[in-house]
């Protein structure tokens, strides 16, 4: 469904992504793990058009998207829940959700999607009128995911959904991620917490210094001594 072929990206002279090859199959939940500053967020930003790649190609559903603007990519059906949530903090929960549905082509789906996100995150239903900036960290993360889901994306990009959250809320968010997977939304998850990510993901990529160093299923990666030592702490 999503395919990256030999993608390079530079920040000035610094290389942020180097020969990245990555494929996400329809219906699967894949994860990219790696240390801070490895280029994980840059990878997602390149997919959704926020960063222009310098070489390589990115295609989505058989169509090349690396030259499109972010809003066009969003309309193709990629929902990006960005790093650090990036909500519209001065707007209400409901307004954020409505804006999430901005690119929704089939407006008749709106009530259904609304039920879906409030089903996953009942907390948001209780706080419809509240200003997004006044929500707790966990609630903000829920809202950010909900906003990305409201466009009924074919592919959901989740950037560090557990960042800065208490362990209990982390678990809650990851339950939601699994629920979204069961509803059939293809997801690419970027996560620093490798244990959590490997728990939910079908296939995992390890990104280090802008390069995919390794990839495989949970079972395959667990056999790698280096992964065990660096990421799983065993």
């Amino acid at each position, binding site marked *: 469904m999503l395919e990256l072929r030999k993608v390079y990206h530079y920040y000035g002279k610094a290389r942020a992504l180097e020969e990245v090859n990555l494929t996400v199959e329809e219906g699967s939940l894949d994860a990219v793990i790696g240390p801070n500053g490895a280029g994980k967020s840059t990878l997602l930003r390149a997919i959704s*058009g926020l960063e222009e790649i310098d070489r390589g190609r990115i295609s989505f559903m058989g169509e090349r998207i690396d030259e499109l603007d972010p*809003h066009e990519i969003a309309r193709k059906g990629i929902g990006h829940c960005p790093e650090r949530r990036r909500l*519209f903090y001065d707007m209400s929960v409901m307004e954020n959700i409505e*804006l999430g549905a*901005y690119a929704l082509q089939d407006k008749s789906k709106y009530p259904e999607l609304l039920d879906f996100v409030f089903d996953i995150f009942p907390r948001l239903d209780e706080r419809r009128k509240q200003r997004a900036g006044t929500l707790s960290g966990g609630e903000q993360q829920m809202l950010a995911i909900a906003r990305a889901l409201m466009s009924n994306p074919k592919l959901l990009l989740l950037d560090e959904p557990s960042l800065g959250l208490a362990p209990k809320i982390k678990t809650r968010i990851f339950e939601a991620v699994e629920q979204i997977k069961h509803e059939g939304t293809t997801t690419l998850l970027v996560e620093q917490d490798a244990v959590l990510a490997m728990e939910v993901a079908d296939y995992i990529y390890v990104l280090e210094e802008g390069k995919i160093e390794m990839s495989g299923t949970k079972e395959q990666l667990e056999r790698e001594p280096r992964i065990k030592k660096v990421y799983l702490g065993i």
Partner: protein
Amino acid sequence: MIEEVIIFGTVQGALLALLALGFSLVYGVGGVLNLAHGAFYLITAYIIFWTIPLFGFTVSAIVGLIAVMGIAAFTSLALIKPLQDTHIGVVLVTFALAFFFEQFVKYFGDPLYHYIAPWVPGFITLLGINLQAQLLALVIGSIALVIVVTLFINKTKIGKSIRAVSQDAEAASLVGINTDLVLMTSLVLSALLVGFAVIFYAPGNYIAPHIGWRYLLLAFSVTIFGGMGSIPGSIVGAFIMGYATTFTDYFPMLGPEYSQLIPIVVILVMLLIRPQGLLGKEEVQ
């Protein structure tokens, strides 16, 4: 004196609100300081002035509004958007554009002062003060427009997308909002408000090629005062500035000449004490 300050302060505030609202909106959306904002006033006033003999005021006013909106759309697409990555490019090009319009009216018209007759004739008396009925129209029109624009920004889909872009342009593009189009929309909206400022305020006043700078300065000082990009801030700021300048006009020791200095004093004091403005939150970029 207090009556004069109330009446003429409100009039001045109504004018400033129309000038500052759009200016602040455009800054909020694209980080664009449109130095041609005052020139939009200038060119609309001259288009109306030139076409009145042909069509009469009503049609001229419509022509003026359409023209300035078209100019704004062109400015946004052809000049601002390609240069948006270099903020210096945007200020340079809008500065040049402001000059272009000043020279344009000088060349196709003349460098002299011209008078546009008020379209609301006569005088009325309020609180014992005589004022041009035109100015009352300005106050009513400005309040109506401010309400309409506020509703538009808060309730409509386009309005919400404008607010979304001004809060977080990147996040807005991720939900599928075309930020270039939103910038153009807000620039056209700001031109429309400036156009209405001309329709309500230019008749009964003098126009000349250099007046654009003064209106730019007014819009800038109000937005610095109220907070760049803050819509409530620019409205509140407009009226506070309106009363402050009028107070200076009527204060016994001072006079109208000194009220011209109010904008710079406001800009200076605000920059030193509270750079984010009265109701602004963001750090000055």
